[in-house]
């Protein structure tokens, strides 16, 4: 075996063991009637689990909830993140400390973030509703119609720093000359931003949006900590719904089919992303 193959072999073996095999095994599970409570009585049922999932209106509603969540959360994170990244780049004093401090939320255990905000936004015990109450505003953060937006804000609190990290790295990697030229030509700050910064940053923006979107699709902890999918099924995201079906209702075969359908969506996005990256790497 050549040197490069020997170096690669352990990684490949673990990769197959911890990712490849479970991935195939999940597909097999999705073709069976597997229930945790009747494990010994598992048999192949073909594609009927998929048929089941596709006709399950809760699955579609979970997809819709997740889609809304991802779209709004990532949009907010991108806009706020870009503004903060630009401000950080121009900052002159206490740069290192500001950067480290503003990045902290992305390292915090998500379940702790969920519980922290559940407490902070709680109608009776929370600080924010109390402060709003003094101003004469009553707003139930986890009430019907509001809960999903509150969870989006929590995600924004935790993950805007990651957006900042990616965008700041992108901004600092940009060449200086075009900005020099724009200044010499007397372009306004906004014009420079729109016609120079954004186009040059575009590849980084695309990657940042896709990385964050794929990550946001996995949202689970906030829902688990705060709403458990409620009120009704308003905050039932795809990951939480799959967890519930597989673990709480023991329907592992059905849940595997759900997760495989989700995987199909994710893979479509990843292939798109990777094609784009490879193309820009070549050019």
């Amino acid at each position, binding site marked *: 075996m050549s040197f490069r193959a020997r*170096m690669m072999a*352990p990684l490949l073996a673990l990769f197959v063991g911890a990712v490849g095999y479970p*991935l195939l095994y999940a597909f097999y599970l999705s073709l069976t009637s597997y229930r945790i409570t009747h494990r010994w009585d598992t048999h192949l049922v073909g594609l009927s689990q998929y048929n089941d999932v596709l006709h399950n209106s809760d699955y579609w509603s979970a997809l819709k909830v997740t889609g809304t969540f991802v779209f709004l959360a990532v949009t907010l994170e991108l806009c706020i993140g870009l503004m903060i990244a630009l401000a950080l780049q121009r900052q002159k004093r206490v740069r290192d400390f500001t950067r480290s401090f503003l990045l*902290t939320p992305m390292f915090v255990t998500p379940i702790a973030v969920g519980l922290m905000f559940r407490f902070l936004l709680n109608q009776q015990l929370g600080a924010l509703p109390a402060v709003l109450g003094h101003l004469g505003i009553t707003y139930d953060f986890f009430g019907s119609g509001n809960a999903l937006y509150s969870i989006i804000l929590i995600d924004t609190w935790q993950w805007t720093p990651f957006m900042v990290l990616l965008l700041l790295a992108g901004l600092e*990697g940009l060449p200086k000359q075009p*900005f020099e030229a724009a200044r010499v030509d007397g372009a306004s700050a906004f014009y420079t931003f729109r016609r120079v910064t954004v186009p040059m940053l575009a590849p980084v923006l695309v990657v940042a949006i896709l990385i964050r979107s794929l990550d946001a699709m996995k949202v689970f902890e906030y829902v688990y900590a705060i709403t458990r999918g409620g009120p009704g099924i308003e905050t039932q995201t795809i990951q939480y719904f799959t967890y519930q079906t597989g673990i709480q209702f023991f329907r592992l075969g059905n849940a595997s089919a759900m997760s495989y359908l989700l995987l199909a969506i994710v893979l479509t996005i990843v292939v798109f992303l990777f094609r784009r990256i490879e193309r820009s790497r070549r050019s």
Partner: protein
Amino acid sequence: MTTLVVPRARRTKSFNPWGHAGSLLLVVAGLVVLLPFLWVLLGSFKTGSQLNDPTLIVFRPNLANWRDVISSGILQAAGRSALVGVITVSISIVVGSMGAYSISRYKTGGSATRFGILAAQVLPPAVLVFPFLDMAFRLRLNDTLAAVVIAHLSFVMPVVTWFLIGFFDAAPKEIEEQAMVDGLSRFAAFRKVVLPQVAPGMGASAIFGFVLSWNDLFYALILAPGNAATLPVRIAGFNTFRGVELGSMCAAILVSIVPVLIASFFIQRRLVRGISGGAVKF
């Protein structure tokens, strides 16, 4: 953006509204980041009745919550989380650095390898968790840390490898070629010459991988919900709103937050470099 290149002397003379808006934004962002932490910190020192007054800021700190949370076995759970993290990261770093070196220097497997590693990072955990659970049942590993370690390898290893590829790409080739000319075997050159060059990057990747493992709830909750529960699973157990337990929940939240915050301060600058070198600069 223009102020970026304006010479200092001119910039100080003219009023710059963009700069002020930027500073204001950073101050507001700083407060938004800080206040939830502060509030939980305050909450962890409040008694049950004080917790009913959310705006109470000045009071006599009370240590009962901390005593409760420590006697509830949270430190043992933190120990289990740390153990899982250290084992997962050690395996990932050893195996990942060898693989990443092979991928970086010899383009092993071409773009298929890179695609596989990238794709593994975005796999929905819901896909892999059910096979892991069934395998754990069969091997009688359910509710053990071993099951959690294997599950964590599935996402820590690809991330660590991805970062390391970036660091190896950035390391100069000449020194190791010289070392091989001087008679070191290729593996010895890798171990004694290349690895020390990327050591800071390896350290940052290791800490990052550890944080990922430490923070995971989904896999740990499903694979080890009972006696082998890790810290996030234990903390999720404080999911109650009886006034008495709210204070200890605050303390428990802090137990999980503080170690990662300390770790994050060590790696942030390198992480920015790692991301600009590996993940974004395609």
